[in-house]
């Protein structure tokens, strides 16, 4: 911690920041802001105007679904997933790299499988509409296809880089 009283600007250079967070985070930031706005408007309507909005809760929930699955792409690139990292402390560097490869392969296989299954579900549920907004459920399940699809690509890149190192 530095001793100056003024905190440094957290985003000194927008371009570096953008490269750090990636395009999925731009969407993620907009989604979090949007969910907050929708919920705030809903609270205002309910307590100040005594009128509840039927669609607000559903919209916010689906926003959170998109945040969750898009975040998988970000977490894949930044390695921010929560995991038990005991074993690698006891391994020599060579084995540690192999372990890292294995972790990436397994995670890649999982997100890829789920993304493919989600494509099939989206197809089946295209005719089904959500309760409040009458949105086709395929649009909501698309969050899994897009998020885990991107995550699979990201894991593949990490895998490629680890393998070549």
């Amino acid at each position, binding site marked *: 911690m530095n001793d100056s009283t003024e905190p440094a600007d957290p985003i000194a250079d927008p371009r570096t920041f953008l490269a750090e967070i990636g395009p999925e*985070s731009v969407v993620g930031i907009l989604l979090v802001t949007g969910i907050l706005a929708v919920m705030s408007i809903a609270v205002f309507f309910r307590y100040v105007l005594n009128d509840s909005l039927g669609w607000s809760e559903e919209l916010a929930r689906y926003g959170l679904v998109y945040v969750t699955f898009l975040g998988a792409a970000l977490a894949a690139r930044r390695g921010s997933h929560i995991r038990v990292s005991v074993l690698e402390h006891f391994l020599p560097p060579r084995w540690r790299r192999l372990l890292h490869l*294995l972790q990436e392969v397994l995670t890649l296989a*999982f997100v890829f*499988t789920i993304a493919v299954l989600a494509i099939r579900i989206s197809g089946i549920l295209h005719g089904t509409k959500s309760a409040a907004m009458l949105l086709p459920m395929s649009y909501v399940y698309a969050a*899994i296809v897009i998020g885990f699809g991107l995550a699979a690509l990201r894991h593949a890149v990490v895998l490629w880089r680890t393998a070549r190192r």
Partner: protein
Amino acid sequence: MLALLFGSLLVLLLLGVPVFAALGISSLLYIVLAGIPPMIVVQQMFNGIDKFSLLAVPFFILAGILMNAARITDELFTFARSLVGHLRGGLGHVNIVASVIFSGMSGTAVADAGGLGTVEIKAMRDQGYPERFAVGITAASSTIGPIIPPSLSMIVYGVVANASIGQLFAAGIVPGILMALALHVMVWYLAWRHDYPRERRAGLRRIATTFLSSLPALVAPVIIIGGIVTGVVTPTEAAAVAVIYALLVGVFWYRALGAGAIVRALFETFETTAVVMLMVSASAAFGWILVRENIAAGFTQAIVTLAGDPWQAMLLLNLILLFAGMFMETVAIILILTPIMIPVLDTYGIDHVQFGVIMVLNLMIGLLTPPIGLLLFVMARIARMDLMSVTAACAPFMIPLIIVLVLISLFPALTLTVPGWFFDH
């Protein structure tokens, strides 16, 4: 099949596969081998996070980050200092008081340690407190955060255990205050033994000025906790209000929040929320299998053969949680162990709300234990110490926390009285 589900999960976790993928892969494996259509996994992963109560997760995370960024923590610290700084070992007591107030707006121990902790450790170093004491009390007092509402861990427990989040929040108030009192006693003892410094007693005028300048920060917990516990707002709505409040106070009152800080806070919220929610999502598929195959029955059977009385069962559950807390992250443990432990609670007539507080306190103690203790890592980073020294520094402060854990395990009234005032059981 039971061995397959838990065996594969355990192996994947030990290999260091991300928790959400480990849960998902073992669920998929089970479902394919049991001949169930695998699409059910995707549906459960979706249903598991498509819940109104979970919207509180990003909001409480964001509110905590914003309040730290708005330097509300500095004001709180100054106010607490004018109140109890004159006691022997004053800054140790200040540390606890500030943590209790900050707990009322923040939902995670890491937000407390990372924000308030930086201010606290610096002040204690400047006054010549031993490093060990400063780091130990800062880490220990951070564990109060998720016990006093709001609390990310309690929201997740409430969703998995199907317990009222409002009741869980109300149930945490007394145990949180007990933790603070127990830590005060510990500080008092250490300060007396090692003759720690004290500060000049602040005059009434100083107390009044620091009170006024930290007033916006002090009002936040009253709005958040008051609103939820009295049932005026849902926890999700309260969380949204907390964010708006933090934004208004940070931008217009303290003038410490710029556009850059807000965008970064939103980004950190996006990342943390997704990482937590992905685990919630995958654990829903895992939990679905547990219920469908009635797998928890075996676990309950094992506990029943070992424990005759409820208190013995409680002891066993506590030990399992403390052990798990040494190796895994809080939310991950709540997600995996809650569905297994709920039938045991029902067998022995243990209240789900009481157990929620017990579980979270166990896991908070786990944050202070090696080899995997998130708070140890945070403290090592902000105090620039090695992990071994941080671990040693935190060890004595686990005694008061364990005493509180024993108390709330033995006496349901400590957790259930306050929710009883506000909710029909």
